[in-house]
């Protein structure tokens, strides 16, 4: 380096370098709105002699997290780094992650997905100096660095981002495993129940609620559960006796995004949170009081017709274009990719 300044710690890691556009604290943000992805629920209604006519809604154990929208005013086109300060930490804390950072007009819009029912998180936002117009008036001491163009790249008066740890994370292979928390009257369960990946936070403060993290969501996962029910036979009911055959197929699904929390013992934990959920179904039934119509010899053919009606193509005509309810089945993407989490402390910026 023919000019400028480079400051390293005793491990040789660069702390300040005049060639780097260091990120500086801009502001804390509270959300401007909150929403959830609407449930996708569809299937034929109607009454049936024998076939079940329900359930016709999402199951109570299909998660859909809250999506908090934050608006960050910026002077430039370089995206901010927004750290999440969770509303709670520990073993029952919600999972949260940034699922979208996008330029909207002169602002940046940041979406944070978080477990439904928890208090909203706060964002701590950082940008390079050339993206912000923070005032430094009144303070006449400290350290500034400049690059070869004379632009300020570091200014100690603007609270540069201080990292206490960085962690390479991955995500679990699935969000839900059907082997737990299902049974009895619990019915369909697509809640996140997988064991999270846990990481020690070095230099963690004793007060875990002081921890803020930057770890945008890159992993996702999509899972479904399907139920198939069928029955046929003869119902004796006076002159109203009849032969019947019916079948009903249900498909419950949830699409998850990778999400994080500061768990018990200040462990940084990687798991998932439900982003969108749906339930679609189809039913076929035929009844007749006439033996001739459903003679045993014809029964197989009749059942075959019903099976074809609700077979593999069942969920392509339930009112949603092309049956594209979710991107893939029972798998995850990017779950094994190294996703760095940058850890800092909220108290550095107050």
């Amino acid at each position: 380096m023919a000019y400028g300044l480079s400051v390293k710690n005793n491990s040789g890691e660069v702390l300040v370098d005049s060639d780097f556009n260091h990120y500086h604290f801009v502001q804390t943000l509270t959300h401007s709105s909150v929403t959830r992805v609407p449930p996708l629920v569809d299937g034929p209604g109607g009454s049936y002699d024998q076939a079940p006519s329900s359930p016709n809604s999402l199951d109570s154990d299909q998660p859909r997290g809250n999506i908090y929208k934050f608006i960050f005013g910026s002077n430039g086109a370089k995206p901010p780094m927004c750290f999440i300060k969770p509303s709670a930490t520990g073993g029952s804390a919600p999972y949260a992650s940034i699922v979208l950072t996008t330029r909207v007009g002169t602002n940046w819009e940041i979406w944070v997905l978080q477990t439904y029912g928890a208090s909203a998180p706060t964002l701590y936002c950082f940008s390079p100096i050339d993206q912000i117009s923070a005032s430094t008036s009144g303070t006449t001491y400290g350290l500034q660095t400049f690059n070869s163009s004379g632009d300020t790249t570091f200014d100690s008066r603007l609270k540069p981002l201080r990292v206490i740890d960085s962690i390479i994370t991955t995500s679990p292979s699935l969000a839900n495993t059907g082997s737990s928390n299902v049974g009895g009257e619990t019915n369909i369960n697509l809640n996140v129940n997988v064991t999270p990946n846990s990481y020690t936070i070095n230099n963690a403060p004793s007060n875990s609620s002081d921890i803020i993290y930057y770890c945008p969501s890159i992993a996702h996962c999509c899972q479904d559960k399907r139920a198939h029910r069928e029955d046929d036979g003869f119902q004796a009911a006076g002159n109203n006796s009849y032969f019947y055959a019916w079948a009903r197929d249900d498909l419950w699904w949830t699409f998850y995004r990778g999400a994080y929390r500061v768990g018990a013992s200040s462990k940084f934990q990687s798991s998932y949170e439900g982003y969108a959920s749906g339930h679609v179904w189809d039913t076929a039934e035929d009844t007749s009081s006439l033996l001739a119509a459903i003679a045993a010899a014809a029964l197989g053919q009749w059942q075959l017709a019903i099976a074809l009606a609700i077979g593999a193509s069942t969920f392509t005509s339930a009112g949603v274009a092309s049956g594209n309810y979710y991107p893939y089945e029972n798998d995850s993407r990017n779950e094994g990719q190294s996703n760095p989490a940058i850890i800092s402390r909220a108290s550095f910026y107050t």
Partner: protein
Amino acid sequence: MFEVLETKDKGHESIVIVKVILERVDKVEGVSVDNIDKSSAYHQTLHDDRIDHSHKTTELTTTLLISNPVTDDKVAKAIEPLNSTKIPGEENDSDTHVERYYVNDGQEERDFYSIGSVPSDIINTLKTDFPSENIDDFLWMSSSSYNSVLKENVITAFHKSNVDGLKNNSEMQRYKEGVISHVHKFFMKTKRVGTRVYSIATKNYSCVPDWCEILAIGEDFEKDQVTPMDFGYINIYFKGDPAKVETEFGLENRRGAEATFYAITADKTTNEVLRVKQYCYDYRTIFSGWELTAARVKKDIAKLHE
């Protein structure tokens, strides 16, 4: 019982998609039996002899995360909790009553019971007043209800012999003409036994608003007679928007959680409404599917006329 549909290796663990057979139950006359071979002569007999039976299957497909290597034992252990999973939406088979109606000539209510749930006082009264009747021959029976048109109490019951319906030509001919079902009527004051025959309606009745759908009519016969008695009235069974029906006929707000239907007893000559009944089903029962029954009979009749 399970079947592994697909395994996806994720390194130290695998995603296993598995279909679990939660229920595969065959029943004959309500009793669980060993699985029935549908191609067997026995199954044919169940159909030929109109024996109540069913073959029910419930399967659930789910996803497991299993440590490698995946084995059947690991999968079996993982799905243990699933074996008690209930799919929501199973019908309510409550046997307290299979039908309840309210009548506007005194707001009396009447319940219909499966024979095993009929209150003993009803059974005892029938045995006393109609000693020649074998109560065990009935499948469903109502409580006693005052009929202001007939000016006496009536108990209604379905006879077991009805189950044999449509096995002989005479029954088939009646079905072809639109007869849906029939019941015994026990007239408690006059000690008579009559029959009410329910048929598909073939015309409109001016006493029923045109925004309602008439599903059936009921005509009364003396027992074992083939010509309706001229009681001077007819019973008309229909469905309609509950709020509008209640307003039209000055009825209380009474509705079933599962279904609500209505019946009018009308003077055959003047079309005067003599009596209105509100049938309220809070859960699906053998009696609650009026529309479905009417639709099925119409479909069958069309086949018979082909």
